[in-house]
């Protein structure tokens, strides 16, 4: 079966700044998560795929056709950009209706398509308001509505959950999964692992402009879970908590905070450690006030995986 997206030795740089380098990738129907820290090259890749940027070297084709200077392709492709950009003077409904009409829908069909897309993202009632009065999260949902108004076969979503409230985050993830179940192709980017994990098991790890790993998330997860994590716990009795935790072979080190109200634990077995910590935190009088993982961000994980 022909892939929906095929990139070959794709390179893009902006002056002296590298965007992406030597990316070769095939993506088929279903959901593919594009995961990487900020500045990794995810947006550059998606913008090339969406025909917004021209490849410097190599090629990228959607449905077998180049994406650059090929507007006809957008009948089959929807793109939700990361930029918080909008026509502030237009109403949300006018904006989505404009895009529906530009996608070839006319009259009542255009209004119906726009209404359906707005309803999908929960903006039907506020559609009459000027976009400049929308919150950040509403504008994000509006961009999503604009990208799905023509029900594309391929959906390119650049950080679609950024700034969206928890309820709509779940609904949007469900919408994306529904697209995947319908046999459409969705490429969704994020720098937050659990977001991608909640939508798909097929991921592409991108770092410093290159594809670092590709495949099933469980394999990647295994690597990530073996990454020695640091977890900080705040509370009134850190030494008592440390004494309980240190019994487990999953703890490799403990350091107390200077103010005597916290500790940082190093662990090589994240899941076992968290299971034990949660059990202890739930005990009466444990006094755990805050749990943070200072290095539990994607950049730290990538640094670990590439052996920095």
């Amino acid at each position, binding site marked *: 079966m022909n892939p929906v997206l095929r990139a070959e030795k794709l390179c893009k740089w902006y002056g002296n700044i590298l965007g992406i380098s030597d990316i070769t990738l095939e993506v088929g129907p279903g959901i593919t998560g594009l995961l990487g820290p900020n500045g990794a090259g995810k947006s550059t890749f998606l913008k090339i795929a969406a025909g917004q940027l021209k490849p410097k070297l190599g090629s990228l084709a959607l449905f077998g056709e180049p994406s650059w200077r090929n507007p006809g392709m957008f009948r089959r492709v929807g793109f939700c950009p990361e930029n918080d950009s*909008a026509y502030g003077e237009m109403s949300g409904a006018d904006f989505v209706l404009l895009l529906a009409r530009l996608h*070839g829908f*006319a009259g009542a069909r255009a209004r119906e398509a726009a209404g359906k897309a707005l309803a999908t993202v929960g903006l039907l009632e506020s559609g009459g308001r000027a976009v400049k009065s929308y919150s950040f999260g509403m504008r994000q949902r509006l961009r999503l509505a604009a990208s799905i108004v023509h029900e594309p076969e391929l959906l390119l979503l650049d950080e679609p959950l950024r700034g969206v409230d928890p309820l709509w985050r779940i609904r949007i993830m469900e919408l994306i999964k529904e697209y995947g179940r319908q046999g459409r192709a969705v490429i969704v980017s994020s720098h937050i692992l659990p977001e991608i994990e909640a939508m798909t098991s097929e991921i592409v790890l991108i770092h410093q402009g290159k594809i670092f790993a590709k495949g099933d998330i469980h394999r990647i997860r295994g690597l990530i879970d073996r990454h020695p994590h640091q977890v900080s716990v705040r509370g009134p009795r850190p030494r008592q908590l440390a004494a309980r935790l240190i019994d487990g072979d999953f703890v490799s080190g403990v350091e107390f905070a200077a103010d005597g109200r916290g500790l940082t634990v190093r662990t090589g077995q994240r899941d076992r450690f968290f299971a034990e910590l949660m059990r202890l935190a739930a005990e009466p009088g444990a006094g755990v006030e805050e749990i943070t993982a200072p290095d539990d961000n994607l950049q730290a994980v990538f640094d670990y995986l590439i052996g920095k």
Partner: protein
Amino acid sequence: MSSESPLRVIFAAFLRSGLRARRTRLFILLGLVPALLMIAVRLLEGSGAVETGASGQFFSHLMLSLYFQLLIPVLALFFGSGVVNEELDNKTLVYLTSVPVRRRDVLLGKYLAAFLLAALLVAAGFLLSFLASALERLGDAGAWAELGLFLGTALLALLCYSALFTALGAFMKKSILLGLFFVFGWESVVQYFPGVTQKFTIVHWIKSLLPLPPGQNSFLVFQLQPSPPMQSVLTLLVLGALFLALAVFIFERKEYILSDNA
């Protein structure tokens, strides 16, 4: 699936949003300034502070200096360069370039909306100034012919300037500065050069279509060596078409990078 022309859809949408824009309201106020000046002169004329007939002369001066040398180029600069620059500044271009519409339709639709907005502003200002200056001559066909001449020339000027600044805006992100230099530097100075040099300005062809205002031997106009009207009309139309074709050429090929957070 659709019989709607994308050019028309874009034109209508951006005309509507242009009418609502804060910038348009600002330009409406700016466009009212000459009309208010005209009314002031009429009042002074009525009170005997200035000689009778001064308002007629003032109308011609007003048209030439305030409209054709200032307001029209400045309006064309802001509306024309905004066709692409505004999309880049607001990072909204992506919406118009990720739909199955040729980029030329996007540019031409937006250009026509910008041109019509600017034309409406100028025409409204002209009409108000004219009514204030020729209140007692409204039955005089000559007065209306003069208004028609000014209005027709203004539309040609807007067409040409807007096309030039649309091309400039498609070519570079911060085109306003260069546009201001063109309007207040090149156009303001070179139009007074003798011989054929002044023909390298747009304002030369515009002025060639207008009646010389009274006091034509003053410093500002003594160097004008008008070209024939038909030649001037054709030149403005051809220049406008060329600038527009250039704008389309650039816009269809140029890669616009909307974010530095790549």
